[in-house]
C-alpha cells in the first residue's frame, strides 16, 4: 500500500512538474495566400531570373507586440512568387536584390527612397494577387537561332541593350555569359563550365561598346551527341545591388 502510494505520489509529482509550464499553441494556422508576378517593364513578361536571383521583402506592419522583423520570400526564376500559408495581417512588400532598378533603396545622401513598395492587406482565407513592374538593368534577347557547327560546337547570337533610361542606374557592362546546361534551370546558378563561355569580363567602361551590337558566342568545346542542352545568355553590369544577371529566354537544343 505504501509502495502504491509512493508510486502514485511520484507520478503526480512528475506530471505536475512536466505540465506546470505548458500552454497549448491554439493560434489558428495561416490560411491566406499571396501571389503575383515581377514584371519586366520592357517585355511585359515575368522578369527572367535565376534560382535565388531575387527576393520579396515582407514586413508585417500590423504587428504591435514589438518591432517587426522583415522576412524574405523566394521568387521563382520566371518572376512568379506564391505563398499559400500567410497569416491574415497587413504587410509592406517589395521585390529586392534582383537585376533591376531597386524599388526601395538608400540614396547617396543617406535618405530612404521608396519608389513603389506596397501595403498589402490580407484577410483570412483570402488570396491576394499583387504584381510589380520593375525596370531591368539590361535587356538580353536572342538574335536568330543557335547554329550547330560542323565541329560539334554551338554558336549563338544575342543583343544586349539597357533596360533603364535613368543614367543613375546605367552601370558599365561587365559580363556576357553564354550558359549551357543539362537542366532548364540554366543560369549563373546552374551551368556546365566546360561548355559555357563567358566571352568577356570587362573592366572599366570598355564593355559598354557591346551594347546594341549583335554579339556572337561559341561554346568552349563540342557538345555531346544524342542529347538535349538548354541554352541561355546572361549579361550583367557592375551594379551596386547584387550583380545579378539579366537573361534571355531558355532555348532547348537537341543535338542529334
Amino acid at each position, binding site marked *: 500500500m505504501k509502495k502504491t502510494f509512493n508510486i502514485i505520489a511520484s507520478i503526480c*509529482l512528475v506530471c505536475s512538474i512536466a505540465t506546470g509550464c505548458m500552454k497549448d499553441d491554439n493560434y489558428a494556422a495561416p490560411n491566406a495566400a499571396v501571389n503575383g508576378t515581377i514584371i519586366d517593364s520592357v517585355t511585359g513578361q515575368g522578369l527572367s531570373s535565376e534560382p535565388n536571383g531575387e527576393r520579396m521583402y515582407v514586413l508585417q506592419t500590423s504587428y504591435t507586440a514589438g*518591432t517587426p*522583423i522583415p522576412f524574405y520570400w523566394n521568387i521563382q526564376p520566371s518572376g512568379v512568387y506564391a505563398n499559400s500559408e500567410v497569416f491574415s495581417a497587413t504587410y509592406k512588400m517589395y521585390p529586392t536584390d534582383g537585376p533591376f532598378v531597386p524599388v526601395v533603396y*538608400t540614396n547617396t545622401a*543617406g535618405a530612404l527612397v521608396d519608389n513603389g513598395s506596397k501595403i498589402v492587406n490580407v484577410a483570412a482565407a483570402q488570396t491576394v494577387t499583387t504584381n510589380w513592374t520593375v525596370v531591368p538593368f539590361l535587356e538580353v534577347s536572342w538574335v536568330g537561332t543557335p547554329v550547330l557547327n560542323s565541329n560539334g560546337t554551338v554558336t549563338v547570337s544575342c543583343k544586349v541593350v539597357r533596360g533603364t533610361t535613368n543614367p543613375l542606374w546605367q552601370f558599365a557592362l561587365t559580363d556576357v555569359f553564354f550558359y549551357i546546361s543539362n537542366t532548364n534551370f540554366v543560369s549563373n546558378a546552374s551551368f556546365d*563550365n566546360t561548355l559555357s563561355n563567358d566571352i568577356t*569580363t570587362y573592366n572599366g567602361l570598355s564593355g559598354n561598346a557591346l551594347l546594341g551590337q549583335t554579339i556572337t558566342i561559341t561554346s568552349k*568545346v563540342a557538345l555531346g551527341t544524342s542529347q538535349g542542352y538548354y541554352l541561355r545568355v546572361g549579361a550583367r553590369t557592375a551594379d551596386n545591388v547584387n550583380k545579378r544577371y539579366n537573361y534571355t529566354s531558355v532555348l532547348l537544343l537537341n543535338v542529334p
Partner: protein
Amino acid sequence: MKKIITVITVLMLTACSKSNLSIPPVTIIQDAQVFTSVGGIQAYFAGIYNNLPIEDTKFDLASEYNTFSFIDNINCMTGEEMNKNETGMATMSTSDATTGHTNWYDFYSVIRNANYFIQTMPQYASNFTPAQANNWIGEAYFIRAFTYFEMVKRYGGVPLILTVQNYPQVPLNQLQVPRNSEEEVYNQIGADCDLSYSLMGATSENVGRANKYVAAALKCRAMLFAGAIAKYNVKNYADPATGKRVEGIPSADAVTFYKASYNAALLVQAGGYQLNRATAATDKVGNYVNLFFDASTGNKECIFPREYSSGNSGSSIDCFLNPHQMQSAIGYTSYNDATEDLVEMFDGLPKNANGNLQTTDANGNYILYGTVPTTTQTPYSTLNTVNTSPPQGSNIVTNVTTPTSNNIMSNQYGLFQNAEPRLLASVIVPGATFKGEIIDLRRGIWTGPVGSGIPQFNTVSTTPYANNSNIVPCTASDGTPSVNIGNPAINVPAGTALLSGGQSGVYGSRNAGSISGFLVRKYADQTKPVSAVTAGGSFQPWLEIRYAEIELSRAEADWELNSLGQADVNYLQDAFTMINDIRDRAGANLLNSTADLANVNVIRNERMKELCFENKLYWDLIRWRTFDTQVSNRVWNVLNPIYVAATGQYIYDRRPYEGNNKFTFNVSSYYQQIPSSELTTNPKLIQNQ
C-alpha cells in the same frame, strides 16, 4: 520515505522564498579578491585573452573560434588554398560551436569583461603602482578595440556598448541599443587604440599580451580597413529609425582613415619592430620558415602572438597539413593544398606572356623539366598505407611488379629550381624536402614516346587522362569508366617500381593526397616527428600581427593617399621602401623605382604572397570589394606533375581542378547577416541588406 516526501515538500515550498542573506557567497570570487593582487589581475586577463576572437589555426568557417577543426578555413575561399571538402563558396557561420552561442553574443561577452575592468580597476588602483594600473586599463581598451574590429568587419555598424549594462537594475528597453554607424564604430576603435597606446608600457607583461605597440598595430590594421570601405564600398544603408549609416562610410573620410593607418604604422616602427632576418644572410628559406615558430621578444617581427601549450590548448594544424606519406595515426592529411593560382604569383618561376607558369613550348608540347633523374629513399614514416595491389585497366602497361620498397623519383624542384625563397618556405612544391624526406607527389606517369614531343592534354576537359594509353594516372576518380586503378606502381626504365601518384599525390578517391600538386608549408612544424602529430597536439604559436603586415598596410595606405592627391609626405617613395624591404627579405625581385608602383595591384599581390595562409586575405578581398569579381564562377588551377618514364624527367600539366568545384562570392556577403536570434533579443537591431 515519509521523511523524504516531507523534505521535498518543504524544499518546494521554500524554493522561491527570499531570505535576507547579506553575507557574500563564498563560491563566487569577489572583486576585492581579483583586483588587489597581480595574480588576480593576471587570472582576469587570462580569461579574457582566452576568449579574444583571434582567427588563428583554430578558426573555422563552420564552427568559428577555438575549434579542433581548421579544415574548412577561410583561406579555402580566397584561392590561396584548395580543400577536398570545399565544393563551393561556404558562408561563414555566425554561431560558435565551442561556446554554443552566436559569435555576436561571444563578442559582447568579451566587450563586457573589458568594460567591467575599465570601470572597476580605478577603485582598486591604490593597490598597485600607477604604471601597473594604467597598463592594465590600456590593455582592456585594446581588447575592446580588437573585439569591435572583429564585429565591424563582419557586420558593419554595431551597437557601441562602452559601459557595463546591468539587468534588471536597468529596464530592458533601455538596454536594447540600436546599431551605431559603421564609421562611429571605426572611430571608437581608433580612439580606444589611442588611449591604449598612451596608457600602456612598451613591453608586454607576458608573451601573448598587448603592449602599446600592439595597440598601434591594431589601429594600423583597422584604420586601413575603414579607409578601404570609405573608398571602395558602394553600399549605402541607414537604419530608418536612427538615420545612422550602418553600411558604408562617406568617401570623403578615406583620407583621414588612411592617414591614421599610416601614422599608426610609424608608431609601430618606432617601437623597434622590424622584419626577421635572423638567418636571412645565409638561408632565406629557413629564415622565413622559422619566423613563425618564434613568439619570443627576440623575434622583432612578432608583434602580437598567441601561444599554446600541452594540456592547455593546442591546434591540429600539423595533422591537416601533413603530406600523406607522413600521415599521423588519426589520419587527416593534406587538407589544405596551395593552389597553382597562388604559386604562380611568386618570382623565380618560368612564366609565359600571360604570367602563367610556362609548361609548354611554342609548339604546344610539354617542356621536360629537371635533369637529375633519380633519388631513391626509404620512407621516413611508417604509418601510412601504400596501395601496392596490382593495377587493373586497359591503359596500364604490362610490365608490372609489386614494389618491394617505396621508391621515389624526384627531380627536386625541376620547374622550381630558381623559385623565390618565400615560395619554398610557404608551399611544399613537388619534389621538395620536408622533415628530411622528399615529398613524393605525382599525378601520373607518362609511358608513351617523347621523341616528337608530348602534346598538351585537353585543358578544358575534366577527365583529361581518360582513355589515353600513354599515361598511367593515379586515380580512378578522373572519370575513367569502371577502371579501378587506385595508385598503381609500374616499372619504369630506371629499374624500379614507381607509384604513379607517389605517396603524397592524388589517389584513393582523392581522399588522402594533395589535390593541387602542392602542399602548405607555412606554420607546419617540420621538427615534429610523425608519431607526435595528433589532434590538438600542435603548439606552435600563432602570429596574429607581425611586422610584415604593418609594412604592407603602410605601403597600401601610402599608395591610396598618393592616389587621393595627398603630398605632405612622399608617399609613393615610402611605399617603394616598404615593398622592397618585404621583397628583399623574401628573396623576391626588387622594384626598380616608384614607377613600378603605378598599379595598386603590385601592393595587393605582395600582400597576398606575404600573408597567404594567415587568415587575412579573406578580409582584404572584402575590404577591397574585389571579392565578387576575383571569385566569380572560379575554378582554382592545379599543377599536375607527371613523371616521364623514358627520360626520368617531369612535365607539368596546369589546368582547372578536375573536381571542377566552382566558387562564387556574392556581393550581398560583403556584410554578414546578423544572427536572427539577436534580432529577436534586441528589436532595435536592423538586419543587413
